[in-house]
């Protein structure tokens, strides 16, 4: 008890005089410094033309072997697939981090669950907007899911891919929650966990199964790399959609208010 308080005091002491907000002198100084930095960078960048592009030339003949015709998808999922694997993990990590920080009331997921001293009202109250939203959602969501599927599939040969499709799925999920916030309480948390893990797990498993074909990690077997990529993309899109929705909700369902919990 005392420890925490002393620590807080100490920290305030050590911060004193360094970052006081109302201090306009500090603000002016910062702005001036940043202006100088920007001007210098501007001069430095514009002074010389960009260097010779060796990478693009070296990459050009490799696209045929990548299994997809869209160059961005080829780089994203094949050449630099490892970056993308880690990026999917970053998104997973964000979901994980948020679940570890906060709990939300599953019957009203748009607020943090707090000690039930003052019960919170439902979010979008009033019959008017709710009805409109519900109708809109009924038409829009199937359409969005369809387009998300198309975008994910189309990533192989044109603009699009797992991230764009997944983001659209996430948008659909967010709309669903806005329209019917209570709906989330019917989804068991274990299922949400599974949905979040699915995409990263598929990506990792595909990467590992490449060892079975005698390749390196993430070295998709040569004829048919495209289908492996498609598998990864669909898994990733589903998980990205679910994770983005979870990020929007902003916390794990509070087990105290959840009937039939499977988790502490």
């Amino acid at each position: 008890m005392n420890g925490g308080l002393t620590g807080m005091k100490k920290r305030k002491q050590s911060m004193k005089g360094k970052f006081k907000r109302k201090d306009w002198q500090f603000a002016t100084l910062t702005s001036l410094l940043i202006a100088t930095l920007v001007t210098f960078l501007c001069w430095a960048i514009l002074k010389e033309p960009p260097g010779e592009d060796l990478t693009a030339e070296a990459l050009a003949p490799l696209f045929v072997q990548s299994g997809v015709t869209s160059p961005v998808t080829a780089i994203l999922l094949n050449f630099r697939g490892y970056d993308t694997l880690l990026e999917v993990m970053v998104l997973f990590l964000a979901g994980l981090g948020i679940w570890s920080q906060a709990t939300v009331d599953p019957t009203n997921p748009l607020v943090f669950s707090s000690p039930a001293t003052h019960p919170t009202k439902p979010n979008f109250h009033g019959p008017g907007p709710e009805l409109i939203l519900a109708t809109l959602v009924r038409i829009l969501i199937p359409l969005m899911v369809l387009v998300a599927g198309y975008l994910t599939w189309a990533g192989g040969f044109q603009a699009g891919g797992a991230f764009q499709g997944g983001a659209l799925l996430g948008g659909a999920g967010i709309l669903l929650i806005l329209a019917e916030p209570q709906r989330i309480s019917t989804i068991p948390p274990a299922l949400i966990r599974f949905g979040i893990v699915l995409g990263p797990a598929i990506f990792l498993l595909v990467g590992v199964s490449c060892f079975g074909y005698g390749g390196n990690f993430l070295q998709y077997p040569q004829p048919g790399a495209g289908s492996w990529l498609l598998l990864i993309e669909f898994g990733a899109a589903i998980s990205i959609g679910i994770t983005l929705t979870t990020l929007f909700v902003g916390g794990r369902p509070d087990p105290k208010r959840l009937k039939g919990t499977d988790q502490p």
Partner: protein
Amino acid sequence: MILILFDFVLIITLPLLGWAVLATEDIFKAVVLFVSFGLLMSLAWVRLNAPDVALAEAAIGAGVTGALFLSALNKLERSVKHERRINRDEEKEAINEREI
């Protein structure tokens, strides 16, 4: 010619909007401005021959990020019992831990 004019408008508007996001008093307005900034940004990506990025920016950068901010704003408002004051920088006593 029209396209170059379009580029020109984008080049001017992007930093101005960015500045407005940080200078607007009302945080709700700032978030709305940020979403429109994201949409303009995705136009810039289209102009710079990056359709993939444009799609991602429109969906993630403007759409989902905007939704995240609005949801956070909703929670902040709620946590001060439906008072909207928190949106303004002046009432910064509410958020007192504000050193970077």
